[in-house]
């Protein structure tokens, strides 16, 4: 991460290219470039810039994320924009990437671990300890019930047939590798992510 330079070459380049289409003038007849630049500066001045990658499709657009630590110690995400240095996207983003901030920061996030008993009509809020203990016990019980050491032909197969894991297209690669490593060592054969679907 690094501090934002106030006169950001990249931004000005994009700004110039963007307004060039209109010959520098808005339909109202005056040049908005300066006003937009000033507004932008105010928004991200003094912010920390981090490097990220868009979470949506697989083009892999590089992102710049601007954050600021507020007086209460909370980190606020101010803005996400395309990284102008990237040979992939050259600073550009689509509507999804451009609204990535709303995916990152949302009132709609799952607030805590939730548990739904068989037949229940509502969720119950539970602790992490409860949820992970339940999950671990479920995995062990299902693994022990459905584990096949030797198949009907006498082959050693050491597989767990009764649990499946699916997901991972939004994981970092290293998380995905860990998932494969852990699930295979538990003997899972049903392993899937979004490649087929």
């Amino acid at each position, binding site marked *: 991460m690094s501090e934002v330079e106030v006169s950001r070459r990249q931004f000005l380049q994009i700004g110039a290219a963007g307004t060039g289409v209109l010959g520098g003038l808005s339909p109202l007849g005056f040049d908005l470039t300066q006003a937009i630049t000033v507004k932008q500066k105010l928004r991200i001045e003094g912010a920390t810039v981090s490097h990220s990658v868009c979470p949506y499709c697989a083009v892999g657009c590089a992102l710049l994320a601007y954050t600021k630590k507020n007086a209460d110690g909370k980190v606020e995400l101010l803005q996400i924009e395309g990284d102008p240095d990237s040979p992939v996207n050259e600073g550009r983003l689509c509507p999804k990437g451009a609204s990535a901030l709303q995916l990152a920061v949302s009132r709609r996030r799952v607030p805590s671990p939730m548990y739904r008993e068989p037949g229940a009509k509502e969720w119950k809020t539970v602790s992490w300890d409860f949820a992970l203990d339940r999950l671990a016990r479920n995995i062990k019980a299902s693994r022990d019930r459905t584990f096949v*050491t030797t198949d009907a032909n006498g082959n*050693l197969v050491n597989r767990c047939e009764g649990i499946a894991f699916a997901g*991972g*297209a939004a994981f970092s*690669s290293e998380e995905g590798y860990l998932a494969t490593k852990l699930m295979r060592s538990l003997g899972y054969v049903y392993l899937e992510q979004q490649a087929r679907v």
Partner: protein
Amino acid sequence: MTNHWRDIRHADLMLINGANPAEAHPVGFQWMMRAKIERGGKMIHTDPRFTRTSAVSDKHLRIRTGTDVAYFGGLINYVLQNNLEHKEYVRFATNASFVIKESYNFTDGMFNGFDEAKKVYDTTAWAYEIGPDGFAVQDIDHPRSVLNLMRAHYSRYTPEMVERITGIQRADFLEVAKLVGEMGRPDKVMTIIYAVGLTHHTTGVQLIRSGALLQLLLGNMGRPGGGMNAERGHANIQGNTDHAISWDILPGYLRIPAPGQKNIDDYIARSAAKKLHANSLNFFGANYRKFLVSLLKSWYGDAATAANDFAFAHLPKPASDASWLSIFDAALRGKMEGLMLSGMTATSIGPDSNQVLQALSNLKWLCVMDAYSTTSSEFWREPSIDPSKVQTEVILLPATHWIEKDGSFTNSGRWAQWKEAVLPPEGEARHDHWILAEVFDRVRALYKEQGGKYPEPVLQLVMPYKDVRRPELDEIAKEINGKDLITGQRLTGFALLKDDGTTTAGDWIYTGHYPESGNLTKRRDGIQDPAKNDPTGMGYYPNWAWSWPANRRVLYNRASADSLGRPWDPKRVGIQWDAVTGRWTGDVPDYPATADPAKPDSPLPFIMTGEGTGRLFSNGVADGPFPEHYEPIESPIDNPLHPKVSATPVAFKYDERAGRPNRFGTSADYPYVATSYRLTEHEHYVTQHVDQLVALQPEAFVEVPAELAKEKGIATGDRVRVSSKRGKLEVRAVVTARLGPLTIDGKKVYQIGIPIHWGFVGINTSQHWLANALTPFVGDASSRTPEFKAFLVNIEKM
């Protein structure tokens, strides 16, 4: 992708099939526009719909969904009939001259080797003649040479037949064929770009393969501006396919072992390619053991020894396919107890969402790890379900987002790009890898306390992290890279891996991304200084991030130059032989860096195959050594090529096999062809939680061709009921000229368009219809990819 996004700008001709990059990959699409604007490249969009991609293409061919084998087959036939293939390339870099065994046969839609009882082909029945030297016999003029068999196979794909099957009129097809035919010249290059519009079929693998065959014939594989380029639809679908979250592989595309393989020798004998030509390097096959042993050493450490065959017994050996459809089929049969879903919602994805809901209800337990609630975490209160009748225990764990953790994403061009943790976890959210590591640690503790079935792999797994419940992604990245166990140093490349247990590598294709000098996926030498950062001027930007394997930017790039190492097109160099320095220069060579091509024993160009060449004929697929057109399982017509074998005989029909009632419809009841797709403003289902995107595309709808709408009295904005044998949608109609009628085998056929994004969870919960309630529960013979993109429906005005 064999190539990468920026590389597309080198293309003279772009065939875009089963994709709509202008809307689904808008930023990647700039490279297609750059090819068009900067070098006059031509763009051909072949798709059921006229989209924004079509609007800027030189030609839009309206094709019936699922018939691209016929289209590509027609192009292959045109090229071969007119002798337009790149002859020198075909001889040098493909298996065109290999002779096939006499038993090979294709009659009335059936290849040889079919097992009627099991409904599968014995793929070993499609084999080369082997000579006394143990290698494949080669004679390009032999009647059974691959080239001659291919000529005969595709001779049926005349422009007239292409028109009957696809609906593309003969004159339009020939106009495109003429352009394609010019791409066999060494100074021309074509790219094929596709997305799930090509893969989501019972013939999905062969749809892609037919494009690859065309590219090999034209000499376009391995060249800048060429290749077969899958766009891919999720941020890290590539990286986590590489790392094998897929039933059939281990990291780095090593096959999962099968029952009956008692040891590594057995496994290698049945998994690794065999050398089929004296000059084939067979790099993958020859080094397979090193990659597997290094993986087992990463996982089982000191418990993996030469004496115990490096703990090979610990690897699970699946009885049969265990991919997406098979998971829900097992649940429907009562064989699946638990399911863990992360960032992936079974209910919305389907196919056949109503059947998937039943499958979820059959589970003992379901765990959903996600940042937002999903149609799976909430499945038990889907509008038609009575929760009191659902006995599934459900755990929902709040997971962090991409922006709250670091780690790398690998894009579709194979570039692994590191991202930083920008924000702390929101509220109680935890990282997925922390959840998984802690759950594993708790399971391990239970096995220690209580014992249980085959606990050894659980107890012996190496977790070499400072905190086993909270590993850092940086630590895992180093593990993936691997190291020399004697020196303790991380390795700079997979060529250093050994099969004696003295090296580790969690995923050999990523070995070298994190040497002792640092994490190369963090590199950022981009377009801020092109002169310095792009020394070849070809857009490789070798010090921006890192691409697998070995930071190579174009796969198979040895084939970008002729047998003597001279580039086919000096203006677009992939790699070339520099006799002065005795090295290959340009991109990172897909070839030994100092192998002199002038030597008679220099390796053949495709170092990853046993043949040493690209494969025009292959027994690596389940449904035929040459791609053949088969109708979708639900189709409005019988296959004009062979009406008695209309659909592929080897598609796995789960319901039929399990004795469940038939869920496929016929054109008598469901007369219209339907296909599904994404919109620019949404990504699958998660964006139903994003205000701005829901505001931009708030409501579910279907697209209805104007002529059909007129017949049915449907106007834009009317509510319509679209139904298949499996379910229905009741949504608004958008009447459009973008989906015109087609004439298929003399019959008028309409196609209806169905965006997929809505469900009963999200900001706008009134939009509760699931598009995949309509789609069929059947998949491709090789990959079991579901047939989301071609099925039959009816439509009524409500």
